[in-house]
């Protein structure tokens, strides 16, 4: 739940669009997504995802899958 998957096979590191940096990694304000040795994004800290959907929205290749379901909810009532 929350950020589920980044499909590496779909990631072309945005080189065809001459982007600097990974828009998916840069869209995350809670440092869930990091870049691996190849420069591709991966889910480093899934437990910190606050399900804003910016990463999936910003990936031009549609490589990021996010679920809206919150993994653990401590509801007060």
């Amino acid at each position, binding site marked *: 739940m*929350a950020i589920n998957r980044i499909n590496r096979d779909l990631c072309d590191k945005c080189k065809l669009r001459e982007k600097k*940096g990974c*828009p998916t990694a*840069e*869209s*995350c*304000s*809670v*440092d869930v997504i*990091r870049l*691996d*040795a190849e420069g591709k994004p*991966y889910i*480093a*800290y899934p*437990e*910190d*995802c*606050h*399900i*804003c*959907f*910016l990463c999936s929205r*910003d990936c031009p290749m549609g490589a990021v899958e996010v*679920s*809206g*379901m*919150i993994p653990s*909810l*401590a*509801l*007060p*009532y």
Partner: protein
Amino acid sequence: MVAGKGSIGSSIRVNEIETDVLVVGGGSTGLWAAIRAKDFCSRVIVADKGMIASAGVSTMIHGVQAPVDDEDMVAAMKELVVRSAYLADQKWLPIILEEMGDRFRAMEEWGVPFVRDADGKLHTENRMGLKVNRMAFINGRPMMRTMKEHALGKGVSLLERTMVTDLLTSDGQHPTGGRVIGAVGLNTISGDFSIIKAKAVIITTGLMGAKRHLAYADGLTGDGVAMGFRAGAELQSMELSQSAAFSVWDRRFSTGGQAEYMRAGAKVINRLGENLIWKYAPDKQAPFLSKQEICFAAVKEILEGRGPVYMDMTNLSENDIKLLRGVLPSAMRAFDEAGINLRDKPVEITPMVHHWGASSGGGLKINLNGETSVAGLYAGGCASHNPGHNVSGAGQGQAFNFVSGYRAGEMAGRTSRDIEQAPIAADQARSLREQTFVPLYRESGPGPNEIYEAINKATLPAEFCFFKNEGTLRATLARMQRLQEEDLPRLKADDIHQLIRANEARNTATIIEPICLSAIEREESRFWHYREEFPYRDDVDWLKWVVTKKSDGGVSVGLESLPIEDYPIQPEKRTRVPALIPFSWANRAQG
């Protein structure tokens, strides 16, 4: 340790940076502060934990107060003062209303694409029951990108992926008897430590949250408010600062759009099918409840045994749903994923407090120029107290962000020209560095997630969020004080990512204490603040602001009376008004 994650590292690289003005927090307020400060000084840096204009809640803004025409200014101000329950600072309000127009026009000149109708006229709408004040619309992402480009074009420097962890002071003390002279922080990926000398520091770190995975605001952890508080700056109205909504649906997911669903005709009902707005609205001819009132009503219904509470959209047409999909694509996608057909049956909703520091309330106390009570320290936006005690969801908060950021930037920029950079106390830089990094060196102890669990366990229940009394507040206070005394000194982090979380957790824990103490002090019920013992709004004795400040041995609490007799808009008579949604814990349903 998982390959590829940040490693602890055996040595920490230290960068020394010098600037005229340091802005902490790169949202819309921070960028306005930086842009304006740059008109007066040559070196302005904006530090942010993430990537400015790519991440953060400012990229999700959708509305802002529309500029008010001169002929409507008096009526607009009166409307906002009445909606603020007369608590608004009427020296600030005309400034916000008048200067918002200038900020708006400047942003349009830069290329910020506010929504316009086909005829070119600015598209505005009435929101949240306001009749005179209107909201204009903007997509936060292009707005932030435009503002970032403009800031960079003026020569503002960015220090992204950097968490500022504490403030440097001229006497090396917290709280300080001197002034703020800079800050320290660390890179969120590499852990490189920065010592930033600055003649002025502007706090624009936004809301104060506890990582509840609601409202996309987990990155906002009260860092700037906590830092300012530790340095000795006064806070104001912390008891009024919470923001809640029907954020949890079907007990499984969080999504927004509450106001839109209700505008489309959705009803809020309890288990018995009673319409809560009809049940609680005082005006049965034109029933209306504010967002906060609906949340209080829903929680009361749940606690008194008539829950669950539902959002009922079964009466909406297919066309209504289609329109909602166009306006709220992300929100509606959540329903699709959950397999919910909104026209089939009502959906359970759970009112939750998202965070503190929203439009209605509190943060670092500032004057009209964004100065805090500590020299060299400024603030604006949601990190400062909001003097308008605004209506949430109608754009006034965003207007305050723009205007206050601009003003703080101007004052900080101007002042920095006339002072010399004070030397950094080596002892303080070293001790703050150790304090920032010490969780990495502990063998065992609670991690940041455990701290947040404890914070949320203490502050999520209705006894703290909604229906408070002195007993419940003191119980929460005691738990938070124990947390600070026993758990925070043992806080452990495994890598740089967790170290950032650990420093955030320390900040969030810090601000709960002034919230508790302010809530204990305010013996009446107003806005989000309800006291079971005082279930009325008290305009006789409580047109006051609660001010808290770190002092030796604890937190001091004081009161500042509104100069209401000097204000142009006053209540016709000062009375005690019974709370619209009263509740007593004696009436809680058993079982």
